[in-house]
């Protein structure tokens, strides 16, 4: 193939290098995750303390809802006074806090960028070792999917402060990569004739990108639900462990962020579906044949379509719409793992021999 000039030993050394880079990236991202968590905890505490201080120092009428030190806030306006005192009132909406020093988060972001670079290098070397686009089996999906999720996180962070997502995005990517390395790992190699097509690059590439984006959206929706529950005085969320939620933007802000990501993810998913149909027409002689993977891709599409509709239906927006995101993402994960491993369809490209 294109890189046929590589000798077998060279290929093998690239493959080994790729593996090492993945482990390095995982290590770095794990440390980043811890730093993110430290930051979140501190942020939650400081905001909680600020909220308490505000309550004591100001008139009771100013604080429209009881934003207590425990963070058992109620009502949507509660977090405004609790966020307001530090220097930049305009920023609080997005969760940026210019006031207290956030040393941990700086370290976390640098480490995330480093982990992201290492993972990128791992993917490139994997591609060189295999002599093709490095997303043709489940192991490579997990790597590239994690890479996209990190990219989306870093990219969105350029436009608005979403560093609060860091802990969860890095957690998920490390989990995915560990799963890939331990369960889905296969040797770097060429692919069977059915996969030798530029549609592999387009269809699968876009599918992984969509999955990466939907991952970040999923994280955001989960946080939205938690935050909403805590703000509405949920007993479960009142626990000390969830104090970090006080440091997050309001639930409706999280909802908007999640929607933006999901909208992009949905459009890409639609493209994945169409590109897949075109490829199926070329490779299998039919554009749609209800293969298990096609069924589940369809289900995912329908669930996210339902989410977009729910969002604009009275009585279904907010929390209920967020549940659709959870269901949709569960379907995405099942489509990736369950369908590849359980069902015997035309998309069984895990590369694993059972």
């Amino acid at each position, binding site marked *: 193939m294109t890189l046929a000039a590589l000798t077998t030993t060279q290929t093998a050394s690239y493959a080994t290098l790729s593996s090492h880079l993945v482990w390095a990236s995982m290590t770095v991202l794990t440390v980043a995750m811890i730093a993110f968590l430290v930051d979140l905890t501190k942020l939650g505490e400081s905001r909680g303390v600020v909220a308490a201080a505000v309550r004591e120092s100001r008139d009771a009428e100013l604080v429209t809802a009881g934003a207590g030190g425990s963070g058992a806030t109620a009502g949507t306006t509660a977090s405004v006074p609790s966020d307001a005192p530090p220097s930049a009132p305009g920023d609080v909406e997005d969760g940026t806090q210019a006031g207290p020093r956030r040393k941990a988060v700086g370290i976390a972001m640098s480490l995330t960028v480093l982990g992201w670079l290492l993972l990128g290098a791992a993917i490139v070397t994997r591609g060189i070792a295999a002599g093709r686009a490095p997303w043709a089996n489940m192991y490579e999906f997990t790597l590239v999917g994690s890479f996209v999720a990190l990219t989306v996180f870093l990219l969105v962070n350029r436009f608005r402060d979403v560093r609060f997502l860091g802990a969860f995005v890095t957690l998920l990517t490390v989990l995915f990569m560990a799963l890939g390395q331990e369960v889905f790992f296969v040797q770097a190699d060429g692919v069977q*004739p059915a996969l030798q097509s530029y549609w592999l690059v387009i269809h699968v590439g876009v599918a992984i990108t969509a999955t990466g984006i939907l991952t970040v959206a999923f994280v955001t929706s989960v946080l939205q639900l938690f935050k909403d529950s805590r703000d509405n005085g949920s007993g479960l969320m009142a626990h000390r462990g969830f104090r970090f939620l006080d440091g997050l933007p309001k639930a409706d802000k999280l909802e908007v962020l999640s929607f933006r990501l999901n*909208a992009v993810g949905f459009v890409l998913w639609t493209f994945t579906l169409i590109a897949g149909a075109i490829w199926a027409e070329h490779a*299998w002689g*039919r554009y749609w044949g*209800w293969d298990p993977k096609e*069924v*589940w891709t369809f289900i995912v599409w329908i669930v996210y379509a339902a989410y*977009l509709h729910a969002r604009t*239906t009275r009585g279904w927006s907010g929390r209920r719409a967020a549940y659709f995101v959870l269901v949709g993402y569960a379907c995405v994960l099942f489509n990736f793992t369950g369908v590849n491993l359980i069902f015997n369809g035309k998309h069984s490209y895990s590369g694993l021999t059972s």
Partner: protein
Amino acid sequence: MTTERAGYRPEGIDDAFVSHDDDAPEATGGAPAGGTDGGEGGGAGGGRPAAPVLPTLGWRGWLRWMWRQLTSMRVALVLLMLLAVAAVPGSILPQRPVDPSAVLTYLQDNPTAGKILDKLGFFDVFSSVWFSAIYLLLFVSLVGCILPRAVAHGKNLRSRPPRVPRKLDRFPARADGTTERTPDEVVDAAVRHLRGRVRWLPTFRVETGTDAQGRRTVAAERGYLRESGNIVFHLCLVGLLVSVGVGQALHYRGQVIVTEGRGFANAVVDYDTFESGRLFRASTLDPFSMTLDRFTSEFTNDATAEPRDFTAFVTTRDPDTGKTTSDTIRVNHPLDVDGSKVYLQGNGYAPVVTVKDAKGQVAYSGPVVFVPQDSKYTSRGVIKVPDVSKGLEQLGLVGFLLPTAASDDTTSPSIYPQPLNPLLVLNVWHGDLGLDQGLPQNVYRLDTSGMKESVKTDGQPVTLTIQPGETVKLPDGMGTITFDSLPRYVALDLRYDPALTWVLVFALGALFGLALSLFTPRRRVWLRVTTDGDPAAGSARTVIEAAGLARGDDSGLQREVDAALAAATGDTDRTTGTTASAANTRKATR
């Protein structure tokens, strides 16, 4: 419950402007029909006091009520979820159109449950009554929802941007500036900027005017394409469904197995299997013929022997012109013949054998298709020899072809897919093949009910091993078998679907519409231009107030307002934008 006509508005994706602040001025006029009011079919009736006596609906009223329910967003949502759930069994249970033999196996393993599931259509979910009902209802709901919206949008497209509100200081995005330009220059510059460069598709729809105080105003609105995209998306889905249906009715698909050196003609009788849509006519088949000249395959050179390439070299002949063309068919690269596509779907070995009966007559000679059983092409096949000389028993030879047999071990499977050391390993049956009853028979299976297996003296079955070129005697003097050569065969799939182009067009149209409806910002921008100071004294300044309103949360709104102001003043330095959260600061300090 009310039957008032006036209250009904098509419901759907919210397209109305929502301000961030309860106190923000009402966006007057021009708000497209959205889901914000009166969309609930015959539902709760909003804030109206409930009528003490329900008016009788009558059958028309009920029909209208049902129609409104069906076209309401809530029912559409329920139908969407039902569709998702209904699709699940299609992936869990074996499906007839995909794998009929798996369905049979399932029915054998689970006789009771299988029968019930079969009755309910669970083995062909996507053609079942319930699945069809859900998606047809969904599409009716879609049409019933989207058509009124399309009409509303059509009217809205011709409407004018809303008037400039009296107070601009309460909007979520604001900016002010002063300039030396005259109000007319300012207005012209702002209009030019807001319309954008593309003449036929202006960014903003702009209207200029003069208010009661004689101040010049600019009102602009953008994002009509949002609803346009939404409508295009939904109509394309309908188009997609129709084209898929048309394709189903007109398509045909034929499967044929061709051995190297042989061919087939594009006629219904020449196919091993042939299926077509309801409106297909056999006379429409293009009468070409095709010959398989050669087939090549490539595998990796290690023990896994993974496939790397399959290529079929074919010659196509057009009977009208007599012209022949040579082509290749590969996986992912079907061959297009007069609008029909020919796919390479499978391949294997078809050893050519010659069987002579006890009288020395040639009873059979030709290729026999052996079906690969594993990735190393250990292939199974049956050689049926019915045409023996009169008075002799018919013969059936069952067994395996090993492309690469491991040394002399005939019991282990092939170790490589290429024919490096081919070997036929056969057991011999004699008796009645059961072909004379006229019933269709599986060519890959030997019906042994009327046959006996040849055995050695120790009772073990006779096993013949034959290499290419070899002739081996059949047991009990039944004759001989010669392994002449080992050609390859290919399984070709020929398919014709005239609606393919339309399916693609509507799919891409839907994608395009979807992207438009999700990513087009919906914004309004207003400018008010006031002359400050005395023009006669030469101290005149032009003061511009600008404000913006967006649909939902829109982080680009402030930038839009700033850009409009900058264009109006012609100078970016003098403008002072306030942050988007003006309303929030106010709320906090209230």
